[in-house]
């Protein structure tokens, strides 16, 4: 009840601080001017994929219109320009994560491919039957299935760290799971379904104390907070470009350089070899060893522009704004009768999953859509989380740097309409 009353006190008009003018940010995103069924688009599905600022769209158009070519091949002007821009993006991503070297940034199709790369190239060559990989109960399917496939192939053991009823990662349970057979801890940095921020510093410290490596799935973290892989001391970090206001088809595997260079290639082909004869092929070092074939060149350039964009705004301002919206949304949604928030961890990113009594999430999604409000409904590719909370599906509002409190109001108004509609 306290939450409800505090919600009322938060003014809905205040979206901006001196450092952060949300209306100016919104003007950078062409799609936000779009109307949907006659209503302004209220895009609250950033956890699935974020919209793109003009800077990203323009960087990609400019590449295609003025200097596009294949990379790492031609002696001609366009190929040199394209290679420079492609590699410059690698450098931008390296600085974004505070990597020790550009060589630690491997471009992949997305986080899913990056995790599969680690499972195949590192896991297959380093894990033996009976050795353990630790994941958590709130992983996205992309950080469950690759390890299950490896279990099938190698007979490794998969252990799952439980979460409590609020969606907190249970550190004590985790600590007890670590042992001499633990080789890898692969957990999410921020839960896509619940918004929980996992205490990764402690997770890493405990894993390293047992000699295990740590992979973090940073898909839902990098859009919301600064990530410093050296300060974290993590071993692998992955994320997808499209959730960070960049294009689809590009993602990042960051790995410690010594680890990457000790790993065999993931796929064979062009661009990843030093020399090929029919008798013997020698492979390039990381990152090129893992980038067989023509890469997603312009997408990588677009990701570089996205990284520039968020860094120019700065994560201090982004986090402060998003936390304000999250707090407002949590209060407003708690005031909707019959609504239950799924995921109430102490430390959360700007994601709110919820269910409404007597109205299936799918029906909610359809009704709020007609008010121009885009939310995700379903299991969020995290079915074990749904099962943990005893729900088949939830609706999820996931916020980005351009979302406002007025948009939260649009969501709750649409939910009120849905409730009237269903006679609830």
């Amino acid at each position, binding site marked *: 009840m306290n939450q409800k009353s505090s919600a009322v006190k938060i003014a809905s008009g205040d979206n901006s601080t001196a450092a952060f003018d949300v209306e100016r940010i919104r003007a950078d995103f062409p799609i936000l001017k779009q109307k949907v069924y006659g209503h302004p688009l209220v895009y609250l599905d950033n956890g699935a994929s974020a919209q793109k600022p003009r800077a990203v769209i323009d960087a990609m158009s400019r590449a295609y219109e003025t200097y596009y070519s294949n990379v790492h091949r031609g002696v001609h002007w366009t190929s040199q320009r394209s290679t420079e821009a492609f590699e410059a993006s690698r450098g931008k991503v390296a600085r974004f994560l505070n990597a020790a070297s550009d060589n630690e940034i491997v471009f992949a199709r997305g986080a899913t491919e990056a995790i599969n790369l680690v499972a195949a190239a590192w896991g297959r060559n380093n894990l033996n039957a009976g050795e353990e990989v630790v994941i958590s109960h709130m992983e996205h399917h992309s950080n469950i299935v690759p390890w299950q496939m490896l279990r099938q192939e190698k007979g490794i053991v998969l252990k799952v760290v439980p979460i409590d009823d609020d969606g907190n990662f249970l550190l004590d349970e985790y600590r007890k799971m670590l042992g001499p057979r633990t080789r890898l801890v692969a957990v999410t940095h921020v839960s896509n379904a619940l918004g929980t921020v996992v205490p990764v510093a402690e997770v890493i410290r405990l894993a390293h104390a047992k000699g295990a490596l740590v992979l973090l799935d940073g898909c839902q973290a990098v859009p919301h907070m600064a990530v410093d892989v050296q300060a974290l001391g993590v071993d692998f970090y992955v994320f997808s470009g499209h959730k960070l206001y960049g294009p689809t088809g590009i993602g990042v595997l960051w790995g410690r350089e010594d680890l990457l260079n000790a790993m065999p290639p993931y796929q064979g082909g062009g661009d990843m070899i030093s020399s090929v004869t029919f008798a013997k092929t020698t492979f390039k070092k990381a990152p090129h060893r893992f980038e067989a074939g023509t890469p997603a060149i312009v997408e990588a350039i677009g990701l570089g522009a996205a990284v520039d964009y968020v860094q120019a705004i700065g994560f201090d301002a982004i986090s402060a704004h998003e936390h304000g919206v999250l707090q407002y949304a949590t209060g407003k949604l708690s005031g909707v009768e019959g609504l239950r928030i799924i995921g109430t961890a102490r430390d959360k990113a700007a994601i709110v999953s919820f269910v409404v009594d*007597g109205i299936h999430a799918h*029906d909610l999604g359809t009704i709020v859509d*007609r008010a121009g409000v885009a939310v995700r409904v379903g299991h969020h590719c995290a079915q074990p989380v749904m099962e943990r909370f005893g729900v*088949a599906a939830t609706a999820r509002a996931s916020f980005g740097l351009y979302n406002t409190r007025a948009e939260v109001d649009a969501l709750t108004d649409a939910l009120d309409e849905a409730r009237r509609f269903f006679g609830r």
Partner: protein
Amino acid sequence: MRDELRDLYQEVILDHGRSPRNFRSLPNATCLAHGNNPICGDMLVVYLDLDKAGRIADVAFQGQGCAISMASASMMTEVLKGKTLGEANKLFECFHDMCTRADFDPAKANGCDVDAMERLSMLSGVREFPIRVKCATLAWHTMQAAVKGEQEASTEGAP
């Protein structure tokens, strides 16, 4: 409220969704199948009792899902009772057309049970919501899977 939504969520549909008919298991079912809509997590089981002449003597379902999938399953059980398997398949064909084609007219569709289609027409509003057609057809796909002796039906890969 917007008209398309009103058409989709008619009072009859909401009523079937809230209190689905024939929502039970058939302990001695001739055949049954599990239906699964992996995108939204809808899950149901359809049970059929066939008599010696191959008619559907009883049909029931259990499960959970959105209002559209629950209402559609409920209404399906009502219209299928007493039908032959051939009639049931034909009805599904007509129902599917109704859910996907704006120009659908049961009177002109050859061999459609007009009375049954009249009742099922409550669900025709789904046409304006292509993403929801699989909710409306899940129970029917599951019924067909049961009749064919398949254990499972999934809306993925099926229209």
